[in-house]
C-alpha cells in the first residue's frame, strides 16, 4: 500500500524533498535479510523484512514531532532506527514509514565534571568514546560494538557489552531522554523534565524510565528518542588511542596502567569461581569471553590471523597444525579476556596482584601466547574500542546466537547432571557441526560477558553459530539446528534460546508474527502479566497503534 500523495506531500513538507524517498530500490536498502545476524529467528533464506512505504530523514525533534503527528492523522505506522544493524529496527508491516535518524548526529554536550554526555541518535560508540577520552572519560560500548548508536542501546534495545562489569548495562547509564511519544507530544524523561539538568532518568520530574526503557527497551515500537544523556566513566589512558599497524591488524601500545589478559581455567567451576572473585575484588574494566566467538578449536588460529596483516582465512588450516597455536588454543579452552585499568600506578599493581591471587585460588592462568606483544597490543585495542564486531560474520557471512545461557556464571558452568551446561550445549552443537551446514568450531563458540550489569552479577552466553547466508543448504541447515536447539533447551528446562528471541514479533516471512502465535508465546512467558500491563500502557500512550509487535502486549486475559 503506497502512501497517499497527500500524506507523502505532508511528510515532504516537513523534512524537505532531499530527505524523503519512496523509490523502490532505495527502500530495498532499508530491508534486512532474515538470513542474517541478530535476527534471532530463522535464519530464512532470501527472506527480507517488508519494504517500508517511504524513508524519511528528520533533522530535529520538531521535525520528528511533526512527522509523528501526520502519522496519527493518516494512521501510518512509523519505525525509527539510528544505525540499522539489527532486525528490530525495520518495519514489520506495510503502511509503515522508516525514520532514518542519521541526520541527528551531534554530541550535544560532554559534562566532564558530572561525567555524562548528551547525544543525538546517530552518535556511535567510537565517536563518543574518542571525544570522552579527550577529557579522561570513557563510555560503555554495547556488545554489538562501536559502530552502533549509543542512544539506540541506551534508550531502546539491549544494552550489555564487554565493559558492562565496570561501565554498567546501558539501561543503567541512561540519565534522561527526550521522547517524541507515539501521539506526537514531546516528553523529557527524568530530571531534565523538571528543568534540573540531565543527572537522573528517574526524576525529580517525569519518572518514566521503567516505562520507556526497562531492561530490554521498547525496540522502536513506541515513539522516537531524539536525544538522551548517558553516564560516562573514568578513563585513565591517553587522550587519543595511539593506533598503529597495517590494516586490518591495528594495534595500540598503551601505558602500563592499562593491561589486557586472556585468562584460562582448568575447569568450568574454576572459571565461574573466578567471575565471583573478580566481582568481589571490584576489578575488570572490561571482562568478556570475546574471542571464543571464533570457536573453541579455531580461536587460537583466528587471533593469529587477525593480528597479522599478511594473513587471511586461507591460513587457518596451516595455523591449526602449528604446535604453538595448538598449545595456546588448548590453554584458552575455558577462557575470557580481561582489561585492567589502574587509576594510579599503585592501583594497577594492586589489581594485578588481586588478579594473580584469584588465579592462584582458582588454578587459572594468564595465557602466555596472548602476551606476545603483537597479540597483546592488538587485543588491547580490540577490547577497548570494540571496533571489529563484524568479525562475528567473517567466516561465511552469517551468524546468530543460540541457547543463551543466562544467570549467575555457574548457571552455565554447572548442571543438574555432572556435566556443565556449557559442555552439554557444546556436545550438542558439535554433533550438528558434523553435517557441514554450520562452521565446525569445536561446538563451543559461546561468547558473553562475565558481568552483565554494573559491578557484576548475571552473566550471559550466546552460542554462536556461523553459516553462509548465500548458501541455501547452509542457511536451512542452520535453521534445522536452531529448531533442534530450541527443543533441546525446552527439554532441558533452559527454555527456548536466543535463536527464538524475536519470534514473538517477527515471523518466517519477515512480517509481524500472527497474533495467535504471539499471544501464545507471550502468555507462556514467566511474567505474562507484564505484557497485559504493557497493553494498557500502549492504549494510553499509543492510542492509534502506530508502533509494532516489538512492544510486547498481551490482549488475552488471564485464564
Amino acid at each position, binding site marked *: 500500500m503506497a502512501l497517499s500523495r497527500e500524506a507523502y506531500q505532508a511528510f515532504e513538507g516537513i523534512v524537505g524533498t532531499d530527505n524523503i524517498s519512496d*523509490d523502490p530500490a532505495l527502500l530495498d*536498502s532499508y530491508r534486512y535479510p532474515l538470513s542474517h545476524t541478530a535476527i534471532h529467528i530463522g535464519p530464512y533464506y532470501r527472506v527480507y523484512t517488508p519494504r517500508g512505504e517511504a524513508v524519511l530523514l528528520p533533522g530535529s525533534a520538531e521535525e520528528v514531532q511533526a512527522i509523528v503527528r501526520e502519522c496519527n492523522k493518516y494512521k501510518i505506522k512509523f519505525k525509527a532506527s539510528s544505525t540499522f544493524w539489527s532486525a528490530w529496527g525495520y518495519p514489520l508491516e506495510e503502511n509503515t514509514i522508516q525514520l*532514518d535518524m542519521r541526520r541527528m548526529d551531534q554530541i550535544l554536550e560532554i559534562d566532564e565534571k558530572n561525567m555524562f554526555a548528551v547525544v543525538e541518535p546517530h552518535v556511535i560508540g567510537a*565517536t563518543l568514546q*574518542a571525544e570522552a577520552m579527550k577529557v579522561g572519560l570513557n563510555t560503555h560500548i554495547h556488545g554489538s560494538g562501536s559502530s552502533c548508536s549509543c542512544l539506540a542501546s541506551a534508550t531502546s534495545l539491549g544494552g550489555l557489552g564487554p565493559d558492562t562489569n565496570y561501565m554498567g548495562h546501558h539501561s543503567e547509564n541512561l540519565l534522561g531522554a527526550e521522547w517524541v511519544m507515539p501521539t506526537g507530544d514531546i516528553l523529557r524523561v527524568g530530571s531534565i523534565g523538571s528543568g534540573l539538568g540531565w543527572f537522573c532518568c528517574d526524576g525529580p520530574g517525569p519518572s518514566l524510565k521503567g516505562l520507556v526503557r526497562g531492561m530490554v527497551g521498547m525496540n522502536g515500537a513506541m515513539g522516537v528518542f531524539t536525544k538522551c544523556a548517558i553516564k560516562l566513566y573514568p578513563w585513565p589512558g591517553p587522550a587519543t588511542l595511539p593506533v598503529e599497524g597495517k590494516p586490518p591488524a591495528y594495534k595500540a601500545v598503551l601505558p602500563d596502567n592499562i593491561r589486557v589478559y586472556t585468562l584460562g581455567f582448568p575447569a568450568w567451576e574454576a572459571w565461574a569461581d573466578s567471575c565471583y572473585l573478580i566481582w568481589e575484588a571490584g576489578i575488570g574494566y572490561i571482562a568478556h569471553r570475546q574471542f571464543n566467538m571464533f570457536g573453541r578449536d579455531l580461536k587460537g588460529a583466528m587471533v593469529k590471523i587477525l593480528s597479522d596483516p599478511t594473513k587471511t582465512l586461507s591460513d*587457518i588450516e596451516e595455523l591449526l597444525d602449528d604446535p604453538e597455536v595448538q598449545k595456546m588454543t588448548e590453554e584458552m579452552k575455558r577462557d575470557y579476556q580481561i582489561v585492567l585499568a589502574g587509576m594510579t600506578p599503585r592501583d594497577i599493581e594492586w589489581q594485578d596482584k588481586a588478579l594473580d591471587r584469584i588465579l592462584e585460588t582458582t588454578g587459572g592462568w594468564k595465557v602466555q601466547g596472548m602476551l606476545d606483544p603483537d597479540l597483546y597490543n592488538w587485543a588491547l585495542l580490540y577490547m577497548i574500542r570494540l571496533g571489529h564486531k563484524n568479525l562475528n560474520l567473517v567466516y561465511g*557471512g*552469517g551468524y546468530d546466537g543460540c541457547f543463551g545461557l543466562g544467570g549467575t556464571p555457574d548457571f552455565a558452568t554447572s548442571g543438574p547432571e555432572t556435566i556443565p551446561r556449557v559442555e552439554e550445549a557444546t556436545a550438542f552443537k558439535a554433533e550438528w557441526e558434523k553435517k557441514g551446514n554450520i562452521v565446525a568450531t569445536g561446538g563451543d563458540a559461546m561468547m558473553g560477558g562475565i558481568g552483565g550489569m554494573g559491578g557484576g552479577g548475571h552473566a550471559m552466553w550466546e552460542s554462536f553459530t556461523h553459516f553462509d547466508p548465500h548458501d541455501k543448504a547452509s542457511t536451512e541447515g542452520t535453521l534445522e539446528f536452531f529448531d533442534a536447539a530450541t527443543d533441546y533447551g525446552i527439554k532441558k528446562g533452559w527454555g527456548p534460546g536466543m535463536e527464538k528471541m524475536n519470534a514473538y514479533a517477527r515471523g518466517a516471512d519477515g512480517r509481524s508474527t500472527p497474533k495467535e502465535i504471539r499471544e501464545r508465546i507471550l502468555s507462556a512467558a514467566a511474567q505474562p502479566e507484564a505484557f497485559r500491563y504493557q497493553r494498557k500502557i500502549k492504549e494510553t500512550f499509543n492510542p492509534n497503534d502506530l508502533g509494532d509487535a516489538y512492544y510486547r502486549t498481551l490482549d488475552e486475559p488471564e485464564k
Partner: protein
Amino acid sequence: MALEDYKADMERCSQCSYCKWIPLDHVKSWRFAKGCPSIAYNNFLSYSARGRFAVALSLLNSQSNYTDRVVDIVYKCVTCGSCDVSDKICRYNLEPLEMMHELRFRLVEDGQLLPQHMAVIEHLRKEDNMMMEPRAGRGDWAEELDVKHITSEQAEVVFHAGCRFSYDKDLRETARTAVTLLKNAGVDIGIMGKDESCCGGKAYDMGYKGEFVKFAENATEAWTAAGVKTVVTSCADCYHAFNRLYPPLGAKFEILHTVQYLDRLIKEGKIKFTKTVPMRVTYHDPCHLGRQGEPYVPWEGKEKKIKGQIVVYEPRKPRYNGAWGVYDPPRDVLKSIPGLELVEMERIREYAWCCGAGGGAREAYPKFSNWTATERIEEAKSTGTEAIVSACPWCERNFTDAIDTTGEKMKVFDVIELVQQAI
C-alpha cells in the same frame, strides 16, 4: 567478472555499516570519523557500500527497476575505496568497490547514463582526453621542454603527464618540473607529448569499461614499441590505471609515481637540496595512490569452503585493503626537505578522506565534489598548517576550486613543487 558474480557478496554483506566510517580503531574525534563521502552527503543508506549492495541485489532480483534515483545512487560516489578498506577490517571476503564498478558497467551497458558523463566520454572518444579540450593541444604542456619524445627516440622511462597536467594551465608547470627533476638526476626519460592519450582510468571509474580497455591497449602498444621499461606519472589516477588496471590486460611495465622516484633519487643522493622551505604543511593521500595504490597481484581461482562453511579461495586470493599502498614515499620526500614541517591530519593513509574529484563526481555532481573537498580543507585547517600538499593534479584542482568558493587561506601544493623550491 559480472555483476551477478557479486551476488554472494550482496547476500553476505552483514549490514554493519563499517563502510560509512573510517576504521573504527582510528576514530580520533567526532568531527573526522566519517569515511564515505557519498553517504555523508546524501544520507540515505543506499549511498553507502552496504546500500549499493542492497540496491544492486534489488535490481538483479527484479524487485525494482532503473529510476532517476537508482542512477543517482550508482553514480554519486567518488569511487574512493574508503568503504572497501573499512569493510575488510572484518569482512575479509567482500569486494564492495569491485562490485560498485561492476554496477556502473552494467548501467552503462543498459544505457542508464548521466548526461554529464556522456558529454565527457563522447569527447574522450574523439579527442582522447577527459578535459573537454582538443587533441591538438595535448603536447602544449611540454613546449620547449628539453626532453626525448619516445615516438621518435628510445627512452627507458616514459613520463606520462595525464589529461589534467596536460591541459590545466595552472598545474602544467608541475609536470614540467617533474620531468626536469628526473632528467637532471640522470634518468633516461622521455615523453609522448602530443601523442599521449588519456590513461582511461577515469572512464573506468565512471563505468565505461570499453573505453578504458581501448586506451589501455593503445598505451601498452605504444610503450612496447618504444622499448619503455618504466612508466612514471605524477597523477594518482593514471598511476592507479597503469598499476592496477593495465596488468590484468597483459601490460608488464614497472610503474612508478613521481613521488616514489623522487624518494628513491633523494635517498640515493641524486637529488640534493640547497634551500630551506620554512613551511608547515599537511599531506593528503590521493585515494588512487594510497589505498588503491597497491600493486596488482595476478590471481585466478575459485571459492571453496573449509570447516564446513568458512569461505576461502583456491589458490589463496590476494587481498586489497590499502595495507600496501604508497604512503611513505611522499612523506619521506616532504620530511627530507629542509625547513619543512609535516603535520598529519586525522584521516590519513588507507583511511584518508577523498578530495572529491574521483569517480566522475567532479564532472556530474560539482556540488557534492566541492563539498567533499571542503571537508578535507577543514580537516587540513584543523592541523594549523598553511598548506595542503598532494600528489595528484585532480586533488589539487578540486582543493583549489573548493578554496576559491569558500575563500579559505589554505595553499595547495604538489610534492614536486616543494621539492623544486628546495633546489
